[in-house]
């Protein structure tokens, strides 16, 4: 794209003014960051993952900084479908913010009810299925590591949410994330988001026990950027639908690398904690010099 050209991006039938989104999780429902970030300027905000029933999240320690990264075990704490569709989502829309609604389910029945609630909400043109959270016992990564389950979940979303673009967010905690992406594409997904957090852990040497009650936690932050970049490269070579790069973006340059790997858009997650205006810096760069062309000619 030329420097003077548009930096709009289209996913499914949904158009965004620019390809820079806030990733699901760190930024909550967006509103919490209203004083730090020009939310209307962002291409969109992937909202904190919502489940049908409210979730209290995990007990005990939830955060642990690592070298260049952050382990979290929040456990999909969220307000539930009722409050989300009734209060949070209208709030975003009323303020001119473009939400991408992140959905997750603990089981098939909950998933069906959640999709029915989303369909009834009426104002949703795009969703991101969180098929990859490592911090819950059911749903999440337990679903998202199996291509057959991905196919089932994506297919049902396409059936229920007619006219709504469906993005599948995938886990890197598998042998070949490309296989998961292919399953999602074949089931009708309009785009792939990669990656979710990488499974890790830490030990408290004084207490002589794991830091997190669930032992394992999800690693995000700059430490995982190379893993995310490789995953995007691989998926771009595997599927034809757009790929949204997320994982460890720490600078404008990191975002440019995702585009060069073939990503159609990027999401900023953990960096919002320490460099809240990074998404706006990326947008400014893209407006000035355009979106870098992909250099990805295969080799996966």
């Amino acid at each position, binding site marked *: 794209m030329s420097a003077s050209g548009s930096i709009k991006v289209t996913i499914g039938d949904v158009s965004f003014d620019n390809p820079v989104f806030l990733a699901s999780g760190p930024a909550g429902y*967006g509103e919490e960051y209203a004083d730090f970030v020009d939310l209307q300027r962002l291409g969109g905000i992937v909202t904190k993952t919502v489940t049908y029933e409210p979730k209290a999240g995990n*007990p005990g320690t939830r955060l642990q900084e*690592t070298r260049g990264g952050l382990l979290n075990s929040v456990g999909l*704490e969220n307000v539930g479908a009722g409050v989300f569709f009734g209060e949070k989502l209208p709030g975003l829309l009323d303020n001119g913010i473009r939400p991408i609604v992140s959905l997750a389910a603990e089981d098939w029945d909950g998933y069906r009810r959640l999709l029915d609630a989303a369909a009834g909400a009426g104002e949703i043109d795009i969703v991101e299925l969180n098929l990859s959270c490592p911090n819950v016992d059911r749903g999440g990564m337990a679903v998202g590591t199996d291509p057959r389950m991905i196919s089932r979940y994506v297919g049902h979303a396409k059936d229920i949410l007619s006219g709504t673009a469906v993005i599948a967010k995938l886990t890197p905690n598998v042998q070949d994330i490309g296989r998961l992406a292919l399953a999602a594409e074949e089931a009708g997904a309009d785009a792939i988001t990669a990656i979710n957090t990488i499974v890790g852990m830490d030990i408290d040497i004084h207490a002589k026990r794991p830091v997190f009650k669930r032992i394992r936690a999800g690693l995000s932050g700059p430490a995982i950027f190379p893993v995310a970049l490789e995953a995007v490269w691989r998926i771009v070579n595997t599927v034809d639908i757009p790929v949204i790069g997320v994982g460890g973006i720490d600078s404008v340059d990191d975002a440019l690398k995702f585009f060069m790997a073939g990503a159609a858009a990027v999401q900023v997650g*953990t*960096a919002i904690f*320490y460099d809240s205006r990074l998404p706006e810096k990326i947008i400014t760069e893209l407006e000035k010099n355009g979106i870098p062309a992909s250099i990805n000619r295969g080799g996966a």
Partner: protein
Amino acid sequence: MGACLQTVPVSFRAEDRYDQSLGRLFLPGSMIDRGVEGDRLAGIEKGLFSAEVAGNEKLSPACRLIRFARPEGFPDAKPGHFVSVRVNSFSVPLLRRPYSIMDLTETELLLLVKVVGPGSRLLAEAAVGDRMDIAGVLGGTVFPSPAGEDAVFVGGGTGLAPMIFAARTWKREGNTGNSYLIHGAATSEELLGTFCESDFTKVFRSTMDGSEGYDGDAVSYLQSLLNDDTISGSKLYSCGPAGMVKALELKVSTRFDSHYTSLEAVMACGVGACRGCTVPLREEDGRKLRAVCSDGTVFDASQIAWEDWE
């Protein structure tokens, strides 16, 4: 440090707030909060500021007082509020570091810093003229004023900071009650000297290793001071390690009308979004996980589910 990390309330509706008496000044995400409190509330607003280091003083072998010139437009703050400091422009260390406000005047923002890791080390080594990115003012609740009654403050380690801010603020407001500070530290290296003596009616110091002051923990010291009628008060305020605050609540708080504490926690966002700094509270309709950063940092200590809080 005094204040703590962040989290997000389950709902922003005012009636869901666990205690309206704490002087909540704003709701997280007030811009688009559509709850009963309406649009952006009057009072505290948050922002990102570039702040210049105006002073760096050694208070003890382990602790430093960092003075920032108050940036243009920096919001006012109340005792219990905190700021979150990005100590350099790289990503190592990664996260901002939350610090209780030790004082905020028309010209300066004061933070109390003890070196516990790379983040606090970089802040402690700041030179006059350095600039740092500060997010503030953060926090959803503040310490309620003693309203003229006698008050006891217990500050463990750098938990002293919000105790000083409270004492100074209320003195400026003309509060006339006595104020007693018990400041406890692990060793004399971490024990802070005489710099805050004029802020309180009287200051008592203790060290866990007995190297200076009372030989023992701050809670035991407070018990003995109450037992021999050296001090008394109806309001108890605290900030410090969880073990200290828990012991205060379980062993001493019945001697006071109230006990409010500013919790310390590891935080990522500081504004209630990431849900990383939750504390279990006993509320009327059951146990709730609340965000230390945005539902606190100040809590009624009797509502904390101490059996589940480390």
